[in-house]
């Protein structure tokens, strides 16, 4: 079945991530890296729904993630660390910010959409920096990680690893299902030709807005996880450079399939780390690598197997 073949690569990827601690990647700092990649992968999956699905290029996605992280901070400052409160607050925070800003943004598209999402994200960024109760520009160190039903499970590296992996896989499944559904079909059609879709009787705006809200919730969740991973949150989480990184993950990974976003997140986080060890001037190498990959990997990393097969035949 074609559907199984499409799922084979992402499932293999999740299996590898699941096996990682047992096949030589169990060291603390490696697990920290992998967790970071998986967490950013969740946010990137939401961004894939927007860019690859709806054709909406957001340059403010890190703000949604940052909102999730600051939800953890706000509750932590009030000494609330229970996941039953933290998780809905983070997801709801991201979704609510997406709803309010998206109500304006989805009326536009193309460059306008980019500028509006960027502008809202910058507002959130400067607001976070001015919140002196939460450390302002210096950021905020959590008293402790989020607890699940009062237990401090998340302090265990392996538990945290598998929690991130489970949520990553669930996010992937959600995005795959949404894109294939009736809702996703309208979304994809409106990306190709909004006028045609309206002539069929669909108003694209509510579909786009809901996609934006879903992506916002996913980013919020990722923000809560990231806050837990680092036990520290700063306004830089919301910076537009972070939004650019997320966009890079999605595009480098490939817009053709959702697992591209996961591949992109892994590739960028790991490459950054690896090049950083190698030389202090790693950005000089990183930039050209990204440019080459965008130029030569037509379908991104996710499209690489098909491209190689094509080259082998041709």
């Amino acid at each position, binding site marked *: 079945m074609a559907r199984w073949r499409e799922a084979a690569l992402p499932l293999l990827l999740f299996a590898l991530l699941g096996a990682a601690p047992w096949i030589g990647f169990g060291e603390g700092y490696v697990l920290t890296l992998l967790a970071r990649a998986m967490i950013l992968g969740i946010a990137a999956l939401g961004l894939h729904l927007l860019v690859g699905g709806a054709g909406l290029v957001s340059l403010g996605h890190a703000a949604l993630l940052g909102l999730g992280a600051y939800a953890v901070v706000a509750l932590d400052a009030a000494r609330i660390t229970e996941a039953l409160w933290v998780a809905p607050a983070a997801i709801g925070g991201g979704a609510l910010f997406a709803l309010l800003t998206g109500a304006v943004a989805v009326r536009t598209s193309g460059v306008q959409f980019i500028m509006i999402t960027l502008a809202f994200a910058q507002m959130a960024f400067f607001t976070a920096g001015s919140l002196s109760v939460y450390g302002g520009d210096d950021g905020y160190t959590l008293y402790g990680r989020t607890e699940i039903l009062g237990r401090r499970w998340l302090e265990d590296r392996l538990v945290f690893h598998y929690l991130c992996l489970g949520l990553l896989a669930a996010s992937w499944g959600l995005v795959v*299902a949404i894109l294939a*559904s009736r809702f*996703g*079909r309208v979304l994809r059609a409106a990306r190709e030709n909004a006028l*045609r879709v309206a*002539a*069929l*009787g669909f108003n694209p705006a509510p579909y786009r807005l809901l996609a934006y809200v879903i992506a916002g919730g996913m980013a919020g969740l990722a923000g809560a996880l990231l806050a837990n991973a680092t036990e520290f949150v700063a306004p830089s989480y919301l910076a537009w450079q972070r939004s650019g990184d997320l966009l890079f993950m999605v595009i480098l990974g490939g817009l053709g399939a959702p697992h591209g976003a996961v591949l992109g997140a892994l590739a960028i986080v790991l490459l950054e780390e690896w090049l950083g060890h190698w030389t202090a001037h790693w950005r000089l190498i990183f930039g050209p690598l990204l440019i080459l990959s965008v130029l030569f990997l037509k379908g991104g990393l996710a499209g690489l197997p098909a491209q190689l097969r094509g080259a082998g035949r041709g």
Partner: protein
Amino acid sequence: MADSILALEGLRKRFGGLTVTDDVSLSVAPRGIHAVIGPNGAGKTTLIHQISGTLRPDAGQIRFAGREVTHLPLHRRARLGLARSFQITAVLPGFSALENVALAVQAGAGSSFRFFRPAAGEARLNAAAMAALEQVGLAPRAGVKAGALSHGEKRQLELAIALALRPKLLLLDEPLAGAGPEETERLILLLGRLKADYAILLVEHDMQAVFALAEAVSVLVYGRLIASGAPEAIRADPAVRAAYLGEDA
């Protein structure tokens, strides 16, 4: 007229200094083909845009199926049963022919805010889409990406999409443009069959087709309706002959 599906009253549209729709009043019967002809730039497409809701008229009224729709947006009018084909083909190139039509079926088959079941697996949508493709003779090409279809096939697909909406009125802007001789013949046969069940407002330059198909013809010149009536009367009308049909009739 009470028994018309579409009635335009005193419609006006200007683009800067150019009057493109000049006090147009027109009514279209609930069955059969009403053709709108006129030289290039007469304002035919602009008129279709105003009826479908892509453009707002500056003045005048549009009544459709007993409702005033002058200020309704495109998607609301589509919901009321107004379907259009585009002069410049506007199929979804990345979707298969079947999925292009299935999306149109989906528009009339309950809510599209459904998130988990794969739409491509919905037998009911696919069956109705396939039936529409069969009607236009495109069923063998159902699995092909619309972007890879020939120009004539895209025109057929446009028609299948419009049919799948089961509309009360079909707005067709030059459905024969760019089609080869065989395709043209096939499309004319198809339009001849469709007019028994649908009201069709047809903009077309192919005079043979127009006079073979239409029950009523309206002639638009510089945005003005200079004549409207049965094909024979239009053919004989001296003003029409002078302004437009001269070399054709």
